[in-house]
């Protein structure tokens, strides 16, 4: 008698459980598929935005390259700022490698190129700018 009651209870529980699992599974699959689709839409939109940003970046790169062309730079330097290309006789070369704040002074004949003392002091055509 007790066994029969237990069997009937199990049967009553299993049937709805089976239906719930079945429905849950079906809805789970549908929900999963729908989430994937939504994600694909989102990725697709983001890809479009990315392409647009890349397009803008390329346009900006082109504009920068054009604005930084020697012709533009010289035009601006000469016409707007009144600069001139330096005469070589007025170009002064300074040491570039040393550290710390600069103290500059003209001291004629202190160092000489290709001079042993100059090389020892670190002044050579290779490390001046």
């Amino acid at each position: 008698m007790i066994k029969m009651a237990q069997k009937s209870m199990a049967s009553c529980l299993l049937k709805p459980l089976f239906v719930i699992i079945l429905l849950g599974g079906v809805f789970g699959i549908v929900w999963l598929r729908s989430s994937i689709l939504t994600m694909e839409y989102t990725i697709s939109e983001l890809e479009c935005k990315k392409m647009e940003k890349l397009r803008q970046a390329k346009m900006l790169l082109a504009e920068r390259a054009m604005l930084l062309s020697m012709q533009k730079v010289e035009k601006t330097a000469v016409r707007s700022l009144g600069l001139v290309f330096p005469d070589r006789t007025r170009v002064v070369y300074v040491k570039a490698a040393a550290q710390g704040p600069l103290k500059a002074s003209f001291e004629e004949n202190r160092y000489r190129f290709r001079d042993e003392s100059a090389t020892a002091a670190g002044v050579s055509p290779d490390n001046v700018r």
Partner: protein
Amino acid sequence: MRKRGIILNTALCFVFLIVVVRLFDIMIVNHKRLYAKAQMQQLKGEDIRVRRGMILDRHGRELALNLELESLYCDPAGMDSPEKSAAALSSVTGKPSRAILTKLSSEGHFVWIQRKLDPDTTTKVKELKLKGIGFMNDSKRYYPKGHLASQIVGFVNIDNKGIEGIELKYDGYLSSGGGKVLFSRDASGKTLSQGVEMESKGNNLVLTLDEGLQYTVEVELDRAMEQWRASAATAIMMDPFTGEILALANRPSFDPNSISGSKNFERRNRAITDCYEPGSTFKIIVGTAALEEKVVSLDSPFDCSRGTIEIGKRVVHDAHKHGVLTFKEVIQKSSNVGSIMVGMRLGKERIYRYAKAFGFGEKTGIDLPGEVSGLIRPPERWSGVSIGSVPIGQEVAVTPLQVLRAYSAIANGGMLVTPHVVSRALSPEGEEIWKPTFGATRVISSRTAETFKDILKTVTEEGGTAKSAAVNGNNVAGKTGTAQIIDPRTKRYSTEKFVSSFVGFVPADDPKIAMIVVVYEPKGQIYGGVVAAPVFKRIAENALSYLNVPREDIHGNMLVVAR
């Protein structure tokens, strides 16, 4: 009640059976046909965008890059009113209304209206909201520096295939394979991402050119063209030790951004495609050969006092009567008579052998399309007067690059280098994937090269033919050339048309640059020392400043910086 139940069950079973039969029909019997039909509706094929790599100068400054634009197309079958649409599109794009109408009225479902519209025009066309009009992403090659180095960089056609210059020579490196990707789309036409990279990028190329030097060269060539009202001009600057081309320019030139507006002769890279008779710059061959073969010494005398020399029926003149000249002075003063005498001592076989060794009559191997080999006839094909012509640069055809390469061999101690314009290829991510290597061949001993270098230095000193090529603060070694052009009408040397040139290197004792300047058909003056040498001087001075090459007389003027 039981009877009703049976009827209901039977009806349900029947309906279910119909559904099963239909499903069987759809899923099994007609599966293939229906699946294909569904695929056609749901899938959309899209081309992978192929984007060419950039072309950069040696410091990474962009010489060629891509713009992302849109191309306009139409579906003639889907147009409402072609006439109205054509008129509206004409007002925005600037194309003739009739031409657009012809396209809108054509048959089929796809016709290009205009490729690669600029962004402003694209926005305006989109605002028109015309039916049957569509846009497709397209890439346009853009050259931000315009004319600068246009004959080296080259250009591409409407489909971005290389047509000239580096764009053609390295097309395989710059572009990469495309392909097609299938996208799922919904009923409204929205596409779903497949997670595929839709852009295929080519490799970037880094050139040996320096935009700063190139600009200097081009500015000075423009100035020379204007000053001498020349028909054309060429200048090449090269590192004499490596063969790296630092700058190469020709005039006339063109803007690769508007190819349709340029002419064939403007697009020609004369530095490698055009031959000319080099004149006195070719005296390097007899000069170095004579020293190398020990036929002469620096002080060997040559009697040039008559100012002429007869070779067969031909009489060759010097520009001025010089008297007795040493071998060194023959080169310094560019004596034709003396050079022919040196050539006669050498003999035609040795002249030919050294000319070939210096690379004349053969392509230099530069990595640009269209190079010609020039011409130097083998000794057995020389005429009776050839021994009076070849030593002074006549009866030979050379390119400016060949001449520069030969002088670079003097500058670097006797090695013949391979000129080149590409230094390396970078992947889209910036990794080096290829770097060309070039060998060098010894053509003369370093001793001969040093000796001849000293002779070439005297050319720009007092008593030389090219004092105007001398650079403040640095020694210049070089040679002038003034050659007559064959008149195509008379088949004889023209008395009016000349090619003036100067080729040299600076600083002479520690060369940083080797350069040639060639001016074709200058008006007013003809001599290389007057026409081309000043151009060399101006370019060299700016280039040395730009390259931070100190003056050799700097000792007393240096700014000492203490910390």
